[in-house]
């Protein structure tokens, strides 16, 4: 009944946990970067592709945004060996998170594209700008400004979302917390420390992104 929190054993493991945080960031950056490529491709296909291409892109987005990422990764890790494909945990997690990120980023980018096509392009064409001028001076700045905040938010979401890779044995922050928890049996303490690291990590990332957004694109973003 009277559980006493003891952080002594866990304190020594903080550097190990912080190392895990680096792995978490790696997973987030990799899957966000590769996912952005997939997302851009899908959003373009959905906007300009033929019927089949639109259908395929739409099915991919629908499937991956409406099923749990955890099952997708679990399947990549535990299911693919059935057909002879053995993936190490990190690769399975990175691939799974990339596919998830691709689907969500396609949605975010599609929203951005739609907002451009509706409003400013017509105005630019009325003003007599050429196609290239319109893209350079109107479309790209508009996209950067409207998409920067949602993309930043999604990156933070990926940092947190990468934690599910712990469940197939990736030793990122949550995975290492699970390891320390089994070794020391100070479970509450370990996960509290992990939580604090996640909070610090995401606040730092948000602040950094807000700074970049402010100076590069004149976008104002709320840090807290």
């Amino acid at each position, binding site marked *: *009944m009277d*559980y006493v929190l003891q952080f002594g054993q866990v304190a020594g493991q903080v550097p190990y946990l912080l190392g895990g945080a680096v792995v978490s960031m790696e997973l987030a950056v990799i899957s966000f970067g590769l996912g952005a490529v997939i997302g851009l491709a899908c959003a373009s296909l959905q906007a300009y592709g033929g019927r089949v291409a639109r259908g395929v892109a739409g099915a991919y987005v*629908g*499937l991956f*945004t*409406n*099923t*749990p*990422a*955890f*099952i*997708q990764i*679990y*399947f990549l890790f*535990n*299911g693919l060996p*059935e*057909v002879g494909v053995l993936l190490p945990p990190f690769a399975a997690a990175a691939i799974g998170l990339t596919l998830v990120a691709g689907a969500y980023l396609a949605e975010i980018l599609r929203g951005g594209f739609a907002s451009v096509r509706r409003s400013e392009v017509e105005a630019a064409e009325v003003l007599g700008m050429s196609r290239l001028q319109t893209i350079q001076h109107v479309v790209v700045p508009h996209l950067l400004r409207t998409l920067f905040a949602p993309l930043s938010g999604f990156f*933070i979401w990926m940092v*947190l*979302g990468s*934690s*599910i890779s*712990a*469940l197939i044995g990736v030793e990122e922050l*949550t995975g290492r*917390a*699970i390891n320390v*928890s089994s070794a020391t049996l100070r*479970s*509450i303490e370990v*996960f*509290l420390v*992990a*939580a604090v690291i*996640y*909070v610090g990590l*995401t*606040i730092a990332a948000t602040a950094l992104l807000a700074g970049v957004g402010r100076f590069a694109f004149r976008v104002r973003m709320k840090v*807290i």
Partner: protein
Amino acid sequence: MLALLAEQIPRFFTWSNVAFLAGAAGTTLLLTALGSGIGAAAGLAIVLVRTSRGRLLLPLRAAAVLYVEVFRRIPFIVVLFIVLFSIQAVAPDASLFTIAVIAICLVSTAFLSEVIRAGFDSVPRQQLEAAAVMNFPRWLVVWSVILPQAWKVVLPPAIAFLVMFIKDTALASQMGVVELTFVGKTLNNRGFSSLLVFGTVMLIYFAISWPLARLGRSLEKHLAPSRH
């Protein structure tokens, strides 16, 4: 591969397995419903605290902000573990289902409170000033001016979060709550092909989540322009 599937399908879709899956889908839905229902009520309470005035409530306001900011920045699986181990330390008999519900509510409260706050902010300031000069008490402003206008702004993103919670509940399988994903893993361990098992489970998730996501998007389109 196909031969394997063909061989397993009749054995897989037995009454007992289908019932197992259906019950699990029910648990998934129940977890989501409880999480969003309680989360919405608690989220509203948080917004009411955050929009309160007076120096007396300042510590409460600060606590509300802290709560929201912290719980939106911790992965659900970590919250789940913290709740699991904390509750087991004080109440070893607590059911896993209860623990999962508590964890989901902690997170959904934080997210839904942000959605509700955006809804509150969408009500034009002028109407709040009109209410203030007519001496409306706070509850009346919320009940008769804010909520009837804010819900249209709140509902679409709230449904988007609902869809997210449905998927998050998959992680409760990790603690042993018998919901969809757990049943998937169990059947997989009983020797059924992962493609078959997880294909089926994903299809069920999809069947729950996709219509909701569509609903959210169409509400967003239809609620936005009209005003009463």
